[in-house]
């Protein structure tokens, strides 16, 4: 009985991590399908996290937290859109700068809570919608709805899309907006569904970057992203168990701490090889591998 119980506990503990990663990754997935990449995802998530805390603690309303999170992510993404789409600034430098800007703004916002705990939100609706409902909806949109085709054509062959009359600005603006909403939800969930409403500096660090990795590992497919996010969530829930499973030696201790990160590198290496072998390619303009 014990091992089965442990297994179900493990499976369940993977959910929160998976939810945060998947939500953030879906938005980036749409943007990358449209032919752009937003390296600032980490900054967006961080700022949204702080904004959610500031608003929800100040007002006591979880809804305010969600709205603030979305607004924060949106503000940064508007900078991204204006710079990259309208001005033609390089998307790499814009994204990287937004990471740091997001960190700075996030800390300012989060500090205003002075460590107080704000309202919380039930997690289960988030789990179901993120890992079951959203991937289905996104899948249907991308592969069955004509606008999904239009979005994908932008990422596959921008010239052809232009000839068809598809407005790259329009679709990318929509992608950027949807990404902001999803990132806001991810941050709000992380704060109010996972951290009991208490903001801690640096707690959400790395999730944005991992989400970028999830898009690659999920092969730019919503279902793939959900699966990849869940698997990483499993790894996180396993992490505390690792020290007891491995022989106690300095090397292994460090490895245990670094496990999720090393796992991501290994996964990326394996998947990239696999994609290469099967002749699969990411949306053309995106990752120049």
């Amino acid at each position, binding site marked *: 009985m014990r091992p089965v119980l442990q297994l179900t506990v493990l499976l369940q503990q993977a959910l929160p991590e998976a939810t945060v990663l998947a939500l953030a990754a879906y938005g980036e997935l749409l943007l990358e399908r449209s032919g752009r990449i937003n*390296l600032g995802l980490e900054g967006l998530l961080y700022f949204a996290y702080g904004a959610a805390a500031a608003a929800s603690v100040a007002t006591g309303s979880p809804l305010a937290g969600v709205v603030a999170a979305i607004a924060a992510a949106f503000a940064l993404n508007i*900078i991204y859109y204006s*710079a990259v789409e309208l*001005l*033609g*600034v*390089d998307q*790499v*430098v*814009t994204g*990287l*700068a*937004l*990471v*740091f*800007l*997001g*960190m*700075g*703004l*996030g*800390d*300012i*916002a989060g*500090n*205003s809570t002075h460590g107080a705990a704000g309202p919380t939100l039930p997690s289960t609706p988030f789990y179901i919608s993120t890992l079951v409902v959203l991937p289905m909806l996104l899948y249907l949109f991308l592969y069955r709805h004509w606008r999904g085709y239009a979005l994908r054509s932008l990422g596959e062959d921008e010239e052809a899309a232009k000839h068809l009359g598809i407005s790259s600005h329009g679709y990318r603006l929509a992608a950027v907006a949807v990404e902001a909403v999803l990132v806001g939800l991810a941050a709000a969930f992380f704060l109010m569904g996972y951290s009991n409403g208490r903001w801690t*500096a*640096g707690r959400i*660090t*790395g999730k944005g*970057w991992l989400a*970028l*990795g999830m898009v*690659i590992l999920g092969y730019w497919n919503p279902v793939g992203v959900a699966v990849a996010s869940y698997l990483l969530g499993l790894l996180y829930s396993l992490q505390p168990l690792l020290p007891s499973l491995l022989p106690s030696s*300095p090397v292994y*201790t*460090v490895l245990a*701490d*670094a496990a999720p*990160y*090393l796992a*991501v*590198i290994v996964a*990326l*290496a394996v998947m*990239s*090889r696999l*994609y*290469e072998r099967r002749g699969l390619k990411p949306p053309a303009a995106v*990752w*120049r*591998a």
Partner: protein
Amino acid sequence: MEGAARALAHRSLFVRLGRWSSVLYGLAGLVLGFLVSIGLGVFTPAGAGGVASALAGVFTSPGSWPLAFPYYAAILFSAVGLAVAYRSGFITIGADGQLIVGMVVAFWLLYFHGMGLAVALIVAGLVGALYGLAVAVLRVWLGVNETLSSLMLNYVAVALVNYLVGGPWSSGGFTKTPLLPSSVSMSVSSAALLATLSAVGVWLLYRYTRLGVAVDAVGGSRRAAETYGASFAKTILVVALLGGFLGGLGGAVYLVAGQRQITSLNIYQGLGYGYMGILAAWLAWLNPLATIASSLFIALLYLANTGLQLQGVPWSFALGFQAVIVLFVTAFLRLSRREA
């Protein structure tokens, strides 16, 4: 004849104006970014006024600048390697991890084995080079995205430090190692000088050797580069080795001239200077020589911010500040290109 001469004079004037106009646009972006960042200070406990006065304090008293030299060294060592890497299209963010690894190796050699300073610096650089090489190998042979893999290695480096500081190298508590013995030392001016000379060295490499041509070719059009003999794989590997070496060296220099011990880190901040190096590289428009100026600028911004931290302004505010400036400068420079 005269008309032709006049026409020629006009044209060269336009060309000169053109180049100047980029500088003007860049400066405008700098000033605007500065102002907006100060404005953001409104949301901090120090207020916009506090931020402004801290900045004024640092920038107007060159006597205080040596305090920033250790930061300058770490940032510059990172930035100049990154500038070359980004030019080739290799978007690595692993400078921070290389700094950390360099610090660890240098501490190990200097504290536990009493090695000479020069040896420690070089070995730190070599280990950093290996750390950088890993990312390149993953990219070149396995197609792994270098941004993510270099970040992951940063996190691994942090885990390593925390383990060492909390365990075998602990000085009692769990947050720092003992200090380096006073026999091992480097003045902040020497550190700054070493960093500056290294940056000039990289610039010379870029400007006068085949590496520069290869880097720009591979970054501009991989197809063209490979067709005419500038190998993508070789270029990326060299660029990664170079950046890694500089990063490791920078970490060692920072340890000896600045911190003198290793403290525990979190993945959120890392060491930090490697990330500031990213911003410094872009602020320098990826020109290796210009990273000297941009790194000093960013180091001074950071110095001002360390004072502000006592007033409750978060550490990351410095990063945000720098980021706003980079955004404005790059946006304005892009605008100036559009006018051209």
